[in-house]
């Protein structure tokens, strides 16, 4: 199993550009999450999904969108990039609600918005 994979590893965007961060898991997990990690801060939940076709907002959803058309994929979309979105983004998954606490994380995508 590859676990949770994320692409790209690093990206530089100009203000106003858009991009999609890809996340795929091969563990057949129902729950998937997107977090951002800012320096000196813990992880902040952006969006999460409890299954294909179901998504919900986390703590900091503004400026982002997600979709979950399959169990495996959970892309994160930035429509109009802003400097405040400079961060490291982590995708994670867990089997179900009961085992939600044991999350498996991807290696992260480092995003710089200039």
């Amino acid at each position, binding site marked *: 199993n590859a676990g949770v994979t994320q692409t790209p590893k690093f990206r530089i965007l100009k203000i106003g550009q858009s991009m999609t961060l890809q996340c795929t898991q091969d563990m057949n997990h129902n729950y998937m999450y997107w977090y951002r990690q800012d320096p000196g*801060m*813990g992880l902040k*939940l952006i969006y*999460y999904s409890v299954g294909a076709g179901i998504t919900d907002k986390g*703590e900091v959803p503004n400026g982002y969108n997600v979709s979950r058309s399959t169990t495996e994929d959970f892309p994160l979309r930035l429509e109009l990039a802003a400097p405040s979105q400079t961060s490291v983004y*982590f995708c*994670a998954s867990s089997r179900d*609600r009961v085992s939600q*606490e044991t999350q498996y*994380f991807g290696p992260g995508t480092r995003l710089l918005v200039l």
Partner: protein
Amino acid sequence: AQSVAQPEDQVKVAEGNPLTVKCTYSVSGNPYLFWYVQYPNRGLQFLLKYITGDNLVKGSYGFEAEFNKSQTSFHLKKPSALVSDSALYFCAVRVPNRDDKIIFGKGTRLHILP
């Protein structure tokens, strides 16, 4: 509001000495508590969790944590530190059936000195 605090930005310990990384929490209800570790340029890895039962929880890589309800703490410990333990450690909390999301602390960087 639910919160978790890691009062130390960094902890330095000599190799072979015992280490403690502190975590306190503030939640209503019975919390689920976790520790994660993050190595450079990697996603978070699950170390251990407390849900119920014995207050002393043993996890991966020789780490353990003690749940103290009266002090609302969940400190991470290891009897003898290794240089390879140097990493960023995150404490996290979840209240089951409430909000159903995990809140992460800001992290503590652990430096093990050879």
